[in-house]
Structures are given as C-alpha cells and as structure tokens.
C-alpha cells in the first residue's frame, strides 16, 4: 500500500489536492480523498452590495467557465425582483451561454485534458504522410452526421476543415522536435511521458492531436467573439439586471448591436460548428474508440448511481424560476435526478427537480462534516439558511502550513458537501446526457430538437463503440465523450438562437433591457430569488436574499461543489473520490490515471471554495472567528 499525493493538481482552475492509497500489487486505488485547498470568501464580499452589481462580483468566482456565474446571478436577482427580460436579451444570453459551452469544452479537451492521452514526445515518431492519411480517415469515420435546425445558413461553405497535408504535419513535427531537443520543454516539462498508457495510441494520432492542440490554442478565442459583441469583453463579459446592456439599432453604426456586429457573432458561431464537427468530435471519438477497445472504461464512480441536472435554454422569456415558469419552455430539460443508470436505461429511476424543489431543505442541503467549516448544530443546511464558520483543523500528518497527509477521518477540504435528498450526485455533461437519455427513452419527454439530437448522438456513439450506453457512459471515457457531444449540440444551439435573434429584430423588436424595475425605489423591502444555469461543468445555482435594496445573503452551489466535495459520513465518498476508487493505477509514482480521471470532470475549484452565511450574521461571524 502506498499513499500518493497529487498537489498541485494541474490543468484545472483553482487549487485541488488528491490523496490516494494504491495497492501496488493489484494497481487498485483503495482509498481516496479530494481536497479543495483554497477559499476566497466571495459570498462575504457580496454582502451589503447593490444587487444590480451582484453579477459583476459573482462572475469572478471563475474565469474559466467565465460568465456562467454572471448568468446565474442576474437570473437570481431577476427572480427575486420579478423582472421578465425582453426576448432579445433571452436569445443573447442563450447565445453567450451556448458559445461559452463550446469554447470551454474545446479548451478542456485540447488544453486541459489532451496531454493525459497524447504526448508531443511520441509525436516525434510519427510519419507525417501517414498522419495526413489518418486525418482524412478519421474525418470519414468519426464525424457524426448530425445537424441542428440551422435555418439561416449564413456560411457559404466550411471555412475551417483541418489541414491534412504532409508538409503541414512535417512542419509541426519539426517544431516539436526543436523544443524537445533543446531540452527546454516548457509546458511539456517534468511530465511522465514514459508512462505505458501513451503507447496505446499510434504515433500518428499523437502528431495529429498535438497539431490540433496548437491549432485550437490559436483559434479558441474566435469561438466566443459573440461575448465581445454582446458583452464587450471576455473573460468576464458585461450583463445587466433586466436584460443586456448591448442596445440594438439597425440604423446606427455606433450602436452596440447592428447588422455588421451581428455578422461578427454569426461568423464566430459558424466557426464553432466547424471546430466541433471537423476537429473536436472526430479527434475525441478516434482516441476514445482506441481506449474503449482496450477495455479502459473505468473511473465512473457514482455517475452510474446518481446524477443531477437543473435544465437550460429557455426558448422564450419567462417570469421567474422558483415559481417554475422557467421550466415551461426549456430546450434542454436536463432538470432532474437519475438513479442507477449503470443498470440500464430501462431500469434507471428518474426524479423531477424544478422550481419549488430548489427552495426545499429536504431536497437540497449541504453538510460540513469533512469540510473546514463548523455548523451551530449537527445536520445539513439548505443554502437559504447556510452558516459560515471556517474551522481549519490542519492535516493528519505535518503542520498547519506544511502538510504531509490530510485527515480523511476528519476535516480535509474547503469544499462543502451538497446533497440531493441526503445523497451525493454527479453533475456535468455526462449527468445531463444520462438524464435526457433516460427521460426520452422512458417516454417521460416529448423531445425538443435539442433532446432528440442528444439521443441520436448517444445512439450513434454506441454504434461506433459497439457498447450500450449504460456501459460506456458512466465512465471516465463517457464523461469526456459526453462533453464533446454536448459541444456539438451547443454549437447548434448558438446558431439556433442567433437565427431567432435576427428574425425577432427583423420583425421590429429591438428591446434588449427591461428597466421598469432598475431603480431600487421600485423594489420590495425584502425579496429572495434563485438563479440556475447548466454551466459547462454542471448544475449551477445562485441564491440571493435582498433587504432594503442591498444583498443580505448570497450563496452559490456550484458544479465543482457537487463533484469535488469531500465525503459524507452517511452518503459516502464524493464523485471525484468515488471515481478514483473505481480506477486502476499502473505505476504508483506516476499516477497518470489519477490525472485522467480527475480531468475527466473538468475540475474548476475557485468557485467551489466559498463561504456560506446566515442572514445578517455574517459580519459578526467573521469578526469573531479566528480565521477571519
């Protein structure tokens, strides 16, 4: 038995530490803990601010899935104040969210995850000519022939198909060789390139993937040009409570949005479709297929047991979330919980999760038995009544500021443990795909075009892999694959809402903000609201309480709180931990599999490591607490 520590966990957002006990003989992980090692206290910083500013602060929870917290935040404040946003604002927010998802998933696959599968060193052995042939073969075999409802096809032809020439791959290989031979490996330094898993792929796949890694590093920005048009910058584009700040005029070139500016956004959205169809999905399926054939489908954890989603993409505007109106015209009804998907879609059990459930302490609550906080009494608390009292207890071995090993029997993380009906759940693209697939296959939904496309994708991939969905989906591989599939759906969702936006403006509606309640004089003395969003990494919820035009309490339960949480004494290990327990590690001191499994969740920790507060008590709590 060997206890290994991975800290810092790399290629993620924020700070994460993994400790795993590995049975060196069998290569099995027998114990694992996941620790968020930082907290920034932003909910405390949000206290007493103007609710119209909340999105600005909340957006800074994370700069990778940038903008998702701003969206959840404006939705929460609008829910509290009873503000319905104009149609155009709903379309624009959906465009921002969909393009964000495409870009975030692409960055994750190529720049945060690919180096777990692909090696620049191995690429040096590739034959550039064979790589060109392979590129074409992959495009023929793995490009899923699916398309969304693209009405206004503004792109004349595909502008961005991958290059498959010998000269191109030879040049890239020469560049990589210069870097490797210089001895200054830079980003590629100090890694376990001799790990046996890198030998699973042929050298040509390595060269092809490394080339696309570089292509997409240069091009990923163009996927979110729409954020620049509608929000002025990225990361952290601008929003507005009541709609969007980007006024629309078809007669003024000085207007934030006019036909020329819409064309910039449209070009970017078209690029997203091509980037997914010509690069991301074929690369992903080609690599995934090889791994599936080798039987490397571990790392599932609790994905096959409990997954949770909150639903997204209101087709038209809505009048509140907690009152369930939001849920009436969603394109992606991934809201709900599915149990036991690993036993087959026919026997999986579905539970609904919508408006009123989000306010019910019996359904959503958080515990801190293994997190560095303390509660005034035992038990879990709903976010509305959350309490913050940091209680850093130090490690099991080492000192407070020089850790050797953390204490899995005590407190060991700055992440709380959220629960659905007392159980832990995995969130993210895989969760959304399991939920939609289960609902449609069990006849619980008349599918929208988005839901139909998801089911078609899953069936198409099952045919390629030769495995049924309940076998390949709830695994490390399935988690990564569903993210790629969701990028394809999201690219078409961006296009779909772009079409609707253009049509609506053509019909004469240019309203983009409802400012009837922008002035706090129009607000009730007290109000509370919920804002939700299916962020790239999973279900996201913000809860806000407003008193006398100020934020009295602000709380977020975020995707990484669900996935990265420490264990619960009754409910068991968190999703990261459970996934590690379902993983083999071949070389204990080069635990590449741990990186693979954890990266398959696309960890994003800064948002997960936050504080909770009881209404009105926060200042006293902070001042009297030794850790404040």
């Amino acid at each position, binding site marked *: 038995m060997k206890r290994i520590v991975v800290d810092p966990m790399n290629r993620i957002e924020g700070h994460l530490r993994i400790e795993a006990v590995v049975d060196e003989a069998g290569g099995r992980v027998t114990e694992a803990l996941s620790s968020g*090692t930082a907290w920034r206290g932003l909910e405390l910083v949000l206290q007493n601010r103007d609710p119209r500013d909340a999105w600005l602060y909340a957006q800074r929870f994370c700069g990778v899935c940038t903008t998702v917290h701003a969206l959840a935040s404006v939705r929460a404040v609008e829910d509290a104040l009873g503000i319905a946003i104009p149609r155009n604002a709903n379309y624009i927010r959906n465009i921002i969210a969909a393009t964000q998802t495409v870009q975030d998933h692409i960055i994750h696959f190529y720049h945060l995850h690919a180096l777990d599968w692909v090696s620049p060193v191995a690429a040096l052995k590739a034959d550039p000519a064979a790589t060109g042939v392979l590129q074409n073969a992959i495009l023929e075999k793995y490009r899923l022939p699916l398309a969304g409802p693209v009405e206004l096809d503004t792109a004349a032809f595909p502008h961005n198909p991958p290059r498959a020439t010998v000269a191109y791959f030879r040049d890239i290989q020469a560049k990589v060789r210069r870097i490797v031979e210089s001895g200054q490996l830079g*980003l590629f330094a*100090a890694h*376990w390139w001799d790990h046996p898993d890198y030998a699973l792929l042929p050298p040509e796949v390595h060269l092809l993937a490394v080339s696309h890694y570089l292509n997409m590093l240069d091009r990923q920005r163009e996927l979110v040009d729409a954020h*620049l048009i509608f929000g002025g910058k990225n990361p952290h584009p601008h929003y507005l409570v009541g709609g969007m*700040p980007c006024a629309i005029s078809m007669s003024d070139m000085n207007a934030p949005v006019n036909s020329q500016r819409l064309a910039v956004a449209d070009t970017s959205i078209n690029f997203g479709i091509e980037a997914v169809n010509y690069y991301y999905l074929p690369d992903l399926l080609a690599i995934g297929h090889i791994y599936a054939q080798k039987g490397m489908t571990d790392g599932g954890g609790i994905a096959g047991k409990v997954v949770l989603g909150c639903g997204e993409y209101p087709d038209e505007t809505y009048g509140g979330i907690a009152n369930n109106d939001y849920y009436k015209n969603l394109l992606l009804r991934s809201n709900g919980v599915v149990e036991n998907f690993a036993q087959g879609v026919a026997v999986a059990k579905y539970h609904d999760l919508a408006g009123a459930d989000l306010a019910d302490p019996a359904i959503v609550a958080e515990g801190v038995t293994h997190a560095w906080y303390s509660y005034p009494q035992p038990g879990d608390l709903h976010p509305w009544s959350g309490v913050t009292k940091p209680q850093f207890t130090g490690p099991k071995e080492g000192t407070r*500021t020089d850790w*050797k090993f953390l204490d899995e029997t005590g407190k060991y993380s700055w992440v709380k443990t959220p629960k659905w009906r007392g159980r832990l759940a995995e969130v993210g693209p895989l969760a959304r795909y399991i939920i939609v697939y289960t609902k449609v296959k069990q006849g619980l939904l008349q599918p929208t075009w988005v839901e139909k496309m998801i089911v078609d994708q899953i069936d198409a991939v099952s045919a390629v892999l030769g495995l049924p969905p309940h076998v390949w989906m709830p695994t490390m591989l399935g988690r990564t694959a569903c993210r790629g599939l969701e990028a394809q759906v999201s690219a078409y969702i961006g296009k779909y809402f772009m079409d609707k936006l253009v049509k609506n403006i053509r019909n004469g509606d240019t309203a983009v903000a409802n400012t009837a309640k922008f002035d706090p004089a129009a607000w009730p003395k007290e109000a509370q609201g919920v804002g939700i969003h299916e962020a790239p990494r999973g279900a996201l919820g913000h809860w806000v309480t407003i008193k006398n035009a100020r934020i009295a309490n602000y709380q977020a339960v975020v995707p990484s709180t669900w996935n990265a949480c420490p264990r619960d004494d009754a409910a068991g290990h968190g999703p990261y931990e459970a996934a590690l327990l379902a993983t083999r590690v071949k070389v204990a001191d080069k635990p590449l599999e741990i990186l693979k499994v954890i990266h398959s969740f696309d960890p994003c920790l800064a948002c997960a490591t936050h504080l909770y507060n009881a209404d009105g008590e926060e200042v006293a709590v902070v001042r009297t607490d030794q850790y404040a």
Partner: protein
Amino acid sequence: MHIGETLWALLKRRSVSRRDFLKTCAALTGAFGLPPAALPAVVAAAETKPLPPVIWLHGHECTGCDEAFIRSQKPLASDIVLNLISLEDMEVLGAAAGEALERHHHEIIAQYPGKYLLLFEGAVPVADGGVSCMVGGKPIAAKLRAAAQSAAAVVAIGSCAAWGGIQAARPNPTGSVAVSEIIGSAPLINIPGCPPIPEVLTGAIMHYVLFGVPPLDSKRRPLQFFGNRIHDTCYRRAFFDSGMFVENFDDKGAKAGWCLYKVGCRGPVAYNQCGSMRWWNGLSYPIQSGAPCVACAADNFWDTDPFYQRLPNINLPNTVATADTIGLVAAGATLAGVAAHGLLSVAQHRRHKEKDRREGKDDE
C-alpha cells in the same frame, strides 16, 4: 546582453548585418579550433537562444487572467509560449502535476537564479498563516516569497495580484494582499485589469523579453498601456463633450451609442487601453457594447460600488457646464455663461431632439 539572448539577436540589435554575423561565426569557428565544416553548427548555435525560463504561480484567483493570456492575438499566446519564453512551471497549461511539478519548480529556481521571470496571478492571503490558499501543502504566500527571492523580475498579473482584487474587497475575509506587499527586492511590474486586455498582458511580457523591464509609472504599471484614461481615448468621448448622454439603458441614446457617464461609467477615472486597443484586435470593449466601464484595472475598484451610480459631476471641457446643466439647456432651460464649445454642443443636442420630435420618437 539580455537574459537568454542569442548572439545573433544581440548583433541584430546592434545593427550588424547578416553577412557580418556569418563572418563573426566563421571567426569563432576558427577560434574554437573547429574545422570549416563546423560553421553551420556554430551559426545554428548562435541563432538558437536559450529561452528565458518563466514560472507562473497562482494565488487567490479565478484563472481569468490565464484565459485572457491564451486569447491574445498579436502576439499569439502560442508564439510566446513556444518561441519567446520557456514556460517551465504553470499549473493551468503545463503537463506535469504534483510532486514532479514541484520538483521541477525548485530545479528551475536553483538552475537559473537571477534569470527567470516570475509571473504571479491572484492575490496573496496572509490571514491565519495563509491557510486559505495552500499549494503543494504549503501557503502560496511562502511559495511566492521563495520564488521571488532570486527572480530576475516579478510580474503581478491582473488586478488581484496588482492590488489584492476582489477577495481583498471589504470585508476581506482571507486577509488578501497584493504581490507588492509580499516580495522583497525583485523588480515588479503590475499588469492590472480584471482580467488585463490579452494584448496588454502578452505585450508587457514581450516587452520584457525583447527590451527588458518596460518604463513604469508610479504604481509600477507599464506606461505604454496605462498612460491614458479610457475617457481620453473613448470613441464615445465626443458625445460626452457634446452633452449627449444615455439616461437609461436601452433608451434612444443607448441605441445611438451616446456617452454612458450618467449610468455609472468609470471611464473618466480608469487608466487602461480599452479605448484605443480595445479587446481582441479592436473588436469591442465594454463601452462599445453598451456597458459602462467599471474601471477594473483601477486600485481597489471593487470597493467603489455601486457601479451604476454615476461619478461626481465632471465639468465639460472648455465650459463651466456639467452633464446635468447641459441637459437642462437642451431641455429648454437657460444657462448663463456657457462657452462657445458648450453652445455648439447644445445646438447639436437640440437638433437631435427636434429630429426626434418630427419623427415622433421622444425618449421614454
């Protein structure tokens, strides 16, 4: 000679021709006692420079600055990372993790004392020994202190590193501070912004690699990028001078791109390049997309909320008028002493009003 500079780069900088450079190489080949056939190898060596090693550490941050970095178009982030520097330690993009990465981090520091560039993103929490940001089992504050000791220079990336940022806003529960409050003697460059404009970030790094530490202002920001207020270079500035303001979001003025001062714009107090460079090759910036500037590159801007509250009255140029008095004049009231510039503005504003009336499009 700059750190890591090649001979060829050095000679080029001194306007030595390629021909003379090759002659120098030939002379060196002889001096090294090598046969003439070895000349190409000597030339190649003189051309291939060891790239300056760079360490990029992460404190209390959201990784938005890394994302900004990879969004840079000119220069492309890939060109910087693969050609101009050797980014040896970076958690967000680097391949290595855990102990292997930690070991490499210490090797770089030991191997290149006084030669590596240290980039730091995020604030540094110091309350309770800094346990609210632990990396590799140690407080990030300790890691920053150690790495900064023998760095050639330290770059504080983003408003969190430069000023403390959002986690240092009241009540600052983690005791977060700026990089400048932690490090000792190494030269410090602040690149504020939440996040910095990608090309400001890469431009500053590029300046360092090519020319050394850039000229800095009193707050250690590169003058090149932080010398002007956004208000000075804003494309909506003419509307400010003319007294034409957005009064409410999505009103007539908002659709026509008028000045956002009255809905809270901080452009008049924000030093950054948004007005001239804009974001992403001139594509846009918040003001161009209708959002008032929040001065995200300014010191402690998080505690200058509420952001939709307008700044105190600012006199219009060459007049004694303010945004409000110009508005009153436009509405038909009288104002004595408005100078010629202001009167012209008023006339322009009035023409718009009359045009609206004719078209039956009065502001709500």
